[in-house]
């Protein structure tokens, strides 16, 4: 499992547990829209931000917490990988 896939799996488990209890993991694909479909509201996004910061050792800024970086597992994983690479 590569780094991006590992990030996505951890995020998938976290989102399923916290925001989609009882949902089948198969329904949460790498491209499922999270912010723009209402799965994650602003509070939930903050929880994901905290999770990402604690688990992957990065720091997220206010303007980075928008749809561009937090709308799908793919976009979050890409954002985390980019932040880690820039550290």
């Amino acid at each position, binding site marked *: 499992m590569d780094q991006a896939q590992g990030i996505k799996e951890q995020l998938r488990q976290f989102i399923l547990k916290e925001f*989609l*209890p*009882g*949902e089948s993991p198969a*329904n*949460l*694909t*790498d*491209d*499922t*829209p999270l912010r*723009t*479909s*209402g*799965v994650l*509201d*602003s*509070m939930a996004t*903050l929880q994901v931000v905290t999770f990402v910061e604690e688990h992957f050792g990065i720091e*997220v*800024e*206010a*303007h*980075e*917490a*928008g*749809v*561009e970086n937090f*709308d*799908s597992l*793919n976009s979050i994983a890409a954002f985390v990988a980019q932040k880690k690479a820039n550290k």
Partner: protein
Amino acid sequence: MELSTAIAPGTVQGTVRTSVGHVDPRIERARPNIYRFSALVAQLGLLLAVFRVYHVEQFRGPDDLDFFAMCCVAFGAFAVHYWLPFRFKEKFWVIVSMASAALFLQRRVTIALFAAGFLFYLIAASRWSFRKRAAIATTVFLAAMFSSAKSEWFVHLRHGLSIPESFWPVFGGIFMFRLIVYFYDLQSAKAKPSLVEFLAYFFILPNYLFLFFPVIDFKTMRVTYYRRDIHESAQQGIFWICRGTVHLLLYMIVFHVRDMLTLNGIRSFPAVVAMMFLTFMLYLRVSGQFHIIVGLLHLFGYDLPETNHKYLLSHSLNDFWRRINIYWKDFMVKIVYFPVYFRLRKKNDFGARMLATAMVFVVTWVLHSYQTFWLQGRFIMTWQDTLFWSILGSLVMVNVWWELRHPKRRKDTSWAARLRTTASIVVTMSLILVIWSLWSAPSVRAWIDFLTWWHPRF
């Protein structure tokens, strides 16, 4: 929100598999299909018939065909846009939108609007530092704001510049909020947006008719452009246009029933409750228009999120805030909540959340007056307005505090849980009806008189 209701089947991004790494997947998502196109066009034709037969949005009389004409233009443009190669699609939509300004607005208003738009674009696209560009754009915008004032000197100035009075509400309707979003996103943009992206964001066809417009997010608009297959996106848009039409038809009924109730007088508790409900339901016009606006944009590949989500089923005030006018909530989260919270969270996470929530409601209160200034030409700061936003903000803060202390862990589908949810909906909506009636009242005194219907008044 559950995945099954949040995301319709097939809405998933990137479903296209391509062996060529560099091919834009949106080209595949825009691939035409004559049968599916015919089905979409047939539905749009039926919608036009409904608009005409039921006089949808014809409030100025039977000759008021602006809405119908706008839909004819948009649906006709869809029929052409659909068959164009992907690289021409957005340019075509921009041309249609801008040409429509000449159709629905006075010529001088259109020219002044385009001049303002190009001036803002030149500022945004210049090589100056971001701070300088933002400062110049703010200065230009404030100058426009002051020059729209009613004082004699400015009236003479506007007359001298040949700027018609009808220009200002349209200018405000287009730029008052989206310019803030645009510059906020520009600050962190990896590349400067192109002219087409700028024009597609600001000069949106329905905006010339609907000045009270959803605050569309620039990044969301770009991220969701051809995010999924055009047939699914367009079908979603048609569904929202249908829903918006139902809202507008219900609005007409609500409007007339409310009028009749007002004429008969409010002389009983059920009449008070009915009046409160009908007053709140006037919001159907806003939600109806917003559904139609975003539905129309879906036809052109902008797979934007929902603007209002079943707000009558809100089970808490926080939930209500999340469901009604979602674009406004997202706008506030972006420009107020996140900046305040991220700045303060390391010192005190709970305090940062509370302060950020409070700031959202203060800014919302101020910006509502700012919006009234642009759309109606005067700043309005009433006690009802202040009380409404203070009460709603305080209750939402209590709700945030409660949700932080009692996080929802498991989906409970028992009958007891369903009953609890039903009771929560009834309590929440009752509370909303009361404070909404205060907000809509001509004065606090009039609202108290309305609530104390048993007292004789002269």
